[in-house]
């Protein structure tokens, strides 16, 4: 899987950077205008998944590491955030930070264990650890509410001032978190750190021979990815006022792989496009019963057969620009 990441030409040149700025501006305007046309809760869900997929893509697309356990960060942070908001009575920003912190902690431990191996073994170790978190969530009813999850999480008041039970306030917070997270990831990718990461992805022994401590870079990428996935999961818990087993189940880890592949692994905007498509499908097809999973499967098959670089990946190839 590691070499499925498209090898894009050279670091983003000035022209690419300009293109990215325009694309980002378009995205920001779309985020600001969309709630007038679409249902805000749906948009917030899409943004949470988009950030989750971007965080995942940071690891797979730029670090070449396929994690199959990202649900543990996403869902685990959701539980932490929900518990912090409901039981400890923290304000929403602190609850989200608590969730992200928990994800960072779990990410450091998992990362330390997992980065010692590559490819399928790396994926299996992350999956195994994620399953442990899942079964902890099933059993630890005092913390996670077992199979009922944590229900009725209060959204609270941001900084003790802004009441998030109002839709526009909540939407703005989610939009800021999503756009901020996206910019952070963009910065990481295009920093010297990001360049080293790409070097490791392309040829690890060469990076070692150049004197880079690759384990250190991989661990840092892993923890960053886990933390940002945690931010996404914690935000989602506040949006839906619910943290449940769905988010820590291994199918969630699979879903984020699907989103990233569909949008384009190793592209900047791909995960956002992928998340939008998958979340829209889940919402539109929920009346068709089994249709949801079948449609997702069909889309996945088409994607693998027809455009292996993903939607944005193919677009970027056609335009000969990195996106």
């Amino acid at each position, binding site marked *: 899987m590691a070499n499925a990441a498209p090898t894009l030409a050279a670091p983003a040149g000035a022209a690419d950077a300009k293109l990215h700025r325009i694309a980002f501006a378009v995205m920001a305007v779309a985020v600001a205008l969309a709630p007038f046309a679409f249902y805000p809760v749906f948009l917030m869900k899409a943004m949470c998944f988009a950030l989750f997929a971007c965080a995942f893509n940071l690891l797979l697309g730029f670090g070449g590491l396929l994690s199959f356990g990202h649900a543990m960060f996403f869902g685990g942070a959701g539980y932490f955030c929900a518990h912090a908001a409901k039981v400890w009575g923290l304000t929403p920003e602190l609850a989200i930070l608590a969730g992200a912190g928990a994800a960072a902690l779990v990410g450091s431990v998992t990362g330390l264990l997992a980065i010692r191996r590559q490819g399928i073994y790396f994926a299996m170790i992350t999956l195994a650890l994620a399953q442990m978190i899942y079964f902890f969530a099933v059993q630890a009813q005092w913390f996670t509410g*077992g*199979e*009922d999850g944590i229900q*009725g999480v209060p959204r609270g008041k941001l900084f003790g001032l802004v009441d998030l039970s109002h839709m526009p306030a909540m939407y703005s917070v989610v939009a800021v978190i999503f756009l901020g997270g996206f910019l952070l990831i963009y910065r990481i990718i295009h920093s010297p750190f990001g360049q080293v990461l790409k070097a490791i992805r392309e040829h690890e022994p060469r990076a070692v021979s150049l004197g880079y401590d690759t384990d250190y870079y991989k661990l840092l990428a892993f923890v960053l990815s886990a933390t940002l996935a945690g931010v996404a999961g914690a935000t989602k818990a506040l949006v*839906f006022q619910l943290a449940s087993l*769905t988010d820590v189940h291994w199918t969630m880890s699979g879903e984020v792989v699907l989103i990233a592949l569909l949008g384009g692994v190793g592209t900047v905007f791909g995960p956002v496009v992928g998340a939008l498509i998958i979340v829209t499908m889940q*919402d539109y097809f929920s009346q068709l*019963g089994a249709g949801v999973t079948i449609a997702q499967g069909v889309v996945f098959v088409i994607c693998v057969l027809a455009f292996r670089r993903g939607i944005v990946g193919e677009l970027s190839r056609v335009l000969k620009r990195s996106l």
Partner: protein
Amino acid sequence: MFKRSVFVAAYLALSAGAAHAEFSGGVIKIGVLTDLSGTYSDISGQGSVIATQMAVEDFGAAKKGMKVEIISADHQNKGDVASSIARQWYDRDGVDAIVDLVTSSTALAVNQVAKEKNKVALVSGAASSDLTGKDCTPNTIHWAYDTWMLANGTGSAIVKTGGKTWYFITADYAFGHALERDTTAAVEKAGGKVLGSVRHPFPSSDFSSFLLQAQASKAQIIGLANAGADTTNAIKQGAEFGITRGGQNFAGLLVFITDVHALGLNTAQGLIVTTSFYWDLNDQTRAWSKRFFEKHKRMPTMVQAGVYSSVLHYLKAVEKLKADQDGAKVIAQMKAMPTDDPLFGKGRVRQDGRKIHPAYLVEVKKPAESKAPWDYYKIRTTIPADQAFRPEKEGGCPLVK
């Protein structure tokens, strides 16, 4: 993001005059939120949609000049999906009441949303007795059955009919633990004895070692504190071990008639189950179930019967109030009026949101005793309505003063 629903059944009023303007959007909209694709689609699913349609027909909405629309969606047994659909339905699509809600996590999620938006949730599919306990709200009624009814009914009634010694095979998660705990309490209160229990991982496909321990315990009753595929797997493998032929009986704590149908009488015979509805109870249930069968090609489960009954009562309350906007008011009206329908007979809804009706302890027939398709149960005892459910004061519902 919903297209106008796929499963829309619109019952048009003969005259859409100003007289009906009190219904929000001029129409009473009922959303059936259920499992259309997964494990629980047999016990609820499409059958619940049909039950809702039948309730609207039987109520005679069209004749009374009330316009009722039904939409449905699949919550995939996920709490967050259920919560987002419910928000959307209440916020944007003008849904006034959500019914069915199979699996507890989805019901508890929608329970909160209904309260927040002051709409109506009528739960039939979910089991958790917390819905009328610590999580009760003025906007939810729990209709068909709950975990307390199952545990108590099965536990105490079996002891009274002679099953004194018990052994539990329990799914190792909160739901299984709760069932085991509640049933144990009921068994011991009735003078029975629990010899032991074993916990299996959830979900599990190989029950042989658990079954051997249960067999070796020599308990008269083996209680299955699990659900769905775990229960049916345990029963199937138990039949291979000859457990029922050896004189022991299985007691399923959460078994529906569709599970028995899937298992077949050969495997399921002797299984003891508590249910709040059986199609072959009396002339009225038989007549209704026959109509249901013609549409769905399966007999109704207690969940589907509950959906029918709850929608019927809801429409009666809305008719009386002539308004549907204020969810808490409609629920208060439903609590004020006694219930009466062909499936559960006369009953009432308590302050904590618990619908009260009798429950039945039934035993699955031997193949030789079954005279017709779906002739599966013989009634061992009827648990009267006032004993079938948890006493109102013990639930800890804040609405009960």
